[in-house]
């Protein structure tokens, strides 16, 4: 095989990676096996399947799967494939069913994937065991839920989800704690966009603080400030002047875990005044009632701007959303963006979150379209033979190790992407 572990190691250096990582279909196939087929992958959120029988269909790498809530109230992740002839069983993006029924020969399955019944069963011989678990749709070897975030692994062994999430887990807590009920809700629809480029272009970008003043230049208005990205704000921040704004970018913290590949950027270290509109006041009152004033104020202090959970999910706190990266082919990627509503917050506030995300992250938005254009141009340009490498060298000499053995830096460094490729290398060069 061309990609033995030694060859894989020659493609990733501490400050650069080989361009074939974006271009070679063989590497893509190997990623589906060794990354998406091995580590914990985000599947969906339990608020998408609130009632027994609710399900959504998605993919984990190349694997079609169903995320369902069974009659026992538990979350299941099962392969979306009939145990008989292999057809897709759940053909809709979402729905509710007492049983899943295959269109082809009418086999039915319970919503936990177990075989329910075979049509015309007397035609099968005595040795054909209709209770054989392998005749079901099949469950993924490992499924774990953390505060509603459902992850699954195609590998029966490996670190637990909590070990895998590590310090990045705090980003989920910070977000969910902002909900007066302690839970978030992703059921307000989904923005879906596609680009003709490799999935890693999107993953790198979600925690890239270096690109903002350049890629998103056109979102800066004539006033010099970006348009408002929050409900109730007249305008956004000055993202691209050369004075104080640039300084604030430099002051953001940056963190990357080389073992797991997760990373985040801190929030800009400026005190933001809390809004004083009636909806926010009602929201603050319910947070305070639950946690007390001191803790409520701490919860609302912006800490992390965005977090990328390797390999396929990111959280953003500014225009709050969960983003899911779905690799389709080496040069084709789908992305699903879910606005985050805070359970227990005033309806007006949640409506504001949803509405603002239309403007920043729909396929017709004022921010995301810039990134999509950059991804397209990257994929087209990477085939040029002027260089073999893609560089992530920014800040490489100033990375510091923290008490957990993770790496920290600040500002517009590329530590986040270095963490992603350290994890890529570890997973991709693991034994056959």
């Amino acid at each position: 095989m061309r990609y033995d572990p030694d060859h894989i190691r020659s493609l990733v250096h501490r400050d650069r990676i080989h361009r074939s990582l974006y271009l070679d279909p063989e590497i893509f196939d190997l990623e589906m096996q060794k990354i998406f087929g091995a580590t914990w992958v985000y599947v969906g959120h339990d608020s998408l399947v609130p009632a027994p029988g609710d399900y959504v269909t998605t993919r984990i790498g190349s694997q079609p799967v169903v995320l369902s809530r069974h009659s026992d109230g538990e979350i299941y992740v099962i392969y979306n494939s009939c145990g008989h002839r292999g057809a897709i069983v759940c053909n809709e993006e979402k729905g509710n069913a007492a049983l899943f029924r295959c269109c082809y020969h009418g086999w039915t399955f319970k919503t936990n994937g177990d075989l329910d019944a075979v049509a015309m069963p007397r035609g099968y011989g005595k040795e054909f065991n209709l209770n054989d678990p392998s005749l079901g749709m099949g469950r993924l070897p490992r499924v774990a839920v953390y505060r509603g975030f459902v992850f699954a692994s195609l590998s029966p062994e490996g670190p637990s989800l909590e070990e895998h999430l590590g310090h990045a887990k705090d980003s989920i807590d910070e977000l969910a704690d902002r909900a007066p009920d302690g839970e978030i809700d992703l059921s307000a629809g989904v923005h879906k966009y596609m680009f003709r480029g490799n999935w890693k272009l999107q993953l790198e970008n979600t925690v890239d603080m270096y690109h903002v003043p350049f890629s998103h230049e056109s979102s800066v208005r004539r006033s010099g400030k970006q348009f408002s990205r929050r409900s109730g704000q007249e305008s956004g921040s000055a993202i691209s002047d050369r004075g104080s704004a640039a300084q604030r970018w430099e002051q953001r913290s940056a963190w990357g875990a080389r073992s797991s590949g997760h990373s985040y950027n801190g929030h800009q270290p400026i005190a933001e005044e809390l809004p004083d509109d009636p909806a926010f006041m009602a929201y603050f009152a319910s947070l305070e009632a639950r946690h007390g004033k001191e803790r409520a104020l701490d919860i609302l202090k912006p800490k992390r701007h965005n977090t990328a959970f390797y390999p396929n999910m990111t959280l953003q706190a500014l225009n709050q959303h969960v983003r899911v990266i779905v690799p389709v082919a080496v040069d084709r990627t789908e992305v699903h963006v879910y606005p985050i509503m805070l359970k227990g917050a005033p309806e007006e506030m949640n409506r504001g979150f949803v509405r603002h995300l239309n403007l920043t992250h729909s396929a017709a938005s004022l921010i995301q379209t810039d990134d999509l254009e950059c991804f397209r141009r990257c994929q087209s340009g990477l085939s040029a033979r002027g260089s073999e490498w893609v560089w992530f060298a920014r800040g490489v000499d100033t990375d510091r190790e923290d008490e957990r053995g993770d790496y920290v830096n600040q500002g517009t460094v590329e530590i986040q992407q270095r963490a992603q490729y350290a994890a890529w290398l570890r997973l991709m060069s693991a034994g056959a």
Partner: protein
Amino acid sequence: MTTMAMNGSKHVAGFGDRRAIEEFLIHEARMLDERRFEEWRDLFADDGHYWVPLKPDQASPDGESSLFYDDKAIMDTRFERLRHPNIHAQTPPHRTCHLVGNVSVQNVDSSRRECTVVSSMIMTDYRMRTQRLFSGRVEHRLRQDDTGYKIVLKRVDLINCDDVFELIAVPI
């Protein structure tokens, strides 16, 4: 024919007249195809909205995601960006061509000078060697004032509203 005539100001007496309204819809689509975005915006009433839902039969733009849900302030922001010299997503720009048909005027309220117009729309767009086709059912809620028809709501229900889209930069 002048813009004023297309706006329907000569048809005040015959409010709800299908031909005048069809001319108005054709004019509106032309403003987009000719990238006269600010003039397109001016066709909306001050409380007007442009809405492209993400789900079939979506009940409301409130609390549910939409591809577009613009009031006039958001339109201003959007079009200021479209005029920015360094808008990468429109370098080069999309070219578009709208076809408006099957126009049907419904719910004519002559006392309030408001009506609902349902039509079918096809928009082709082209950029960077890729041509796309968007089509759907359009609902216009129109109000007539002394300057002509104003759009209170333009709702575009694309037949592929829940599709996975490549970037969209201009209104449909």
